[in-house]
């Protein structure tokens, strides 16, 4: 999933200054899972903004609404009935959600309320960790299901680096050494020989080398 965190309240308020009728728009998918932009967080932020506006005697209307998915056109289109009541949308979607809403409603400013962080996993309650860079050419098979691009601090394809101590990374003892994990897992499966290959530098052309990426699946199209 995509992880995100709310921007500081002063930054958000700064971006909202010109607007008087604001829709705080949440998304009930990834950003709800990481407790940044779901229904609850949307209600909290809207309430906080209203309180600050009242304290400053600002004449603004701030309301909230949450879509099931802000990055899917079929859900965004449901805003059609209400969006005309506002002069700005404060989106609590990830960067893709913000842009999907902006793309569909080009006449209304859509302001990001979150900083989109990374593709990650919910490892425990309240703990999200980065584990994929979306490189476009997944090599997890060779590395026992542990991504050296996302999880090795030096992004080594032919690790470890020599600084690994007790399973921890030399850049920070709180960080697990990805290469220790790669070796442990490949050993468990009797597949250490996969590391006999010298892996060439990553071919990043599959990521953004060709400009913005898209996926087209004709079987999924109408």
């Amino acid at each position, binding site marked *: 999933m995509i992880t995100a965190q709310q921007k*500081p*309240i*002063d930054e958000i308020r700064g971006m909202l200054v010109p607007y008087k009728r604001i829709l705080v728009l949440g998304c009930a998918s990834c950003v709800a899972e990481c407790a940044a932009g779901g229904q*609850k967080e949307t*209600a*909290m932020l809207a*309430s*906080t903004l*209203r*309180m*600050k506006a*009242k*304290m400053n005697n600002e004449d603004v209307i701030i309301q909230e609404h949450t879509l099931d998915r802000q990055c899917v056109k079929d859900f965004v289109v449901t805003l059609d009935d209400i969006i005309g009541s506002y002069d700005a949308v404060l989106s609590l979607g990830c960067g893709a959600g913000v842009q999907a809403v902006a793309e569909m409603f080009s006449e209304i400013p859509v302001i990001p309320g979150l900083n989109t962080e990374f593709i990650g996993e919910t490892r425990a309650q309240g703990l999200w960790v980065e584990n994929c860079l979306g490189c476009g050419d997944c090599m997890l098979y060779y590395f026992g299901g542990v991504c050296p691009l996302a999880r090795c601090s030096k992004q080594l394809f032919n690790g470890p680096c020599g600084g690994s101590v007790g399973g921890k990374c030399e850049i920070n003892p709180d960080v697990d050494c990805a290469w220790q994990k790669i070796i442990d897992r490949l050993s468990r499966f009797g597949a250490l020989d996969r590391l006999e290959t010298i892996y060439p530098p990553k071919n990043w052309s599959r990521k953004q080398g060709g400009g913005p990426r898209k996926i087209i699946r004709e079987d999924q199209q109408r």
Partner: protein
Amino acid sequence: MHYQHNRTLALFYCQNVPGAGERERIGLEKEYGQCIRFYPIACSGRLEPVHLLSALENFADAAYLITCPEGMCRYFEGNLRAIKRVMRTQDIISGIGLEKERVGIITGSKEGPKTLAELAKEIFDKVLQMEPSPVLGKGERSYDYCATEAH
């Protein structure tokens, strides 16, 4: 004897707190009128920051939570989680310039347990020392004052 107060406290409390039964709550509601709004919850861990914020936004000068004592939570960790959520709410309100003390948590004591009535009075006395909330314009109060015989 009647006293007049124009402060409102939103008081959320775990039903496990001594003296927190329905009958006691109804008695306290009569006593405090609009000054304290009582919200029993099955476990303090169910309280979300949005509940506290919503109270502060709409009617309360302060919003407090009373939990059962540490180690006594029927759901094991509810009261510990509640502490973190109250702290988060405090950070949020201080971010917009409201005093942190407008939100608080009282964890019951195993050794000297106090009743809901005792704790409500202690918290409300503290609220009376606060300035009226800058969020609530005078005209937005749901009452002008309330009178109680016990205070």
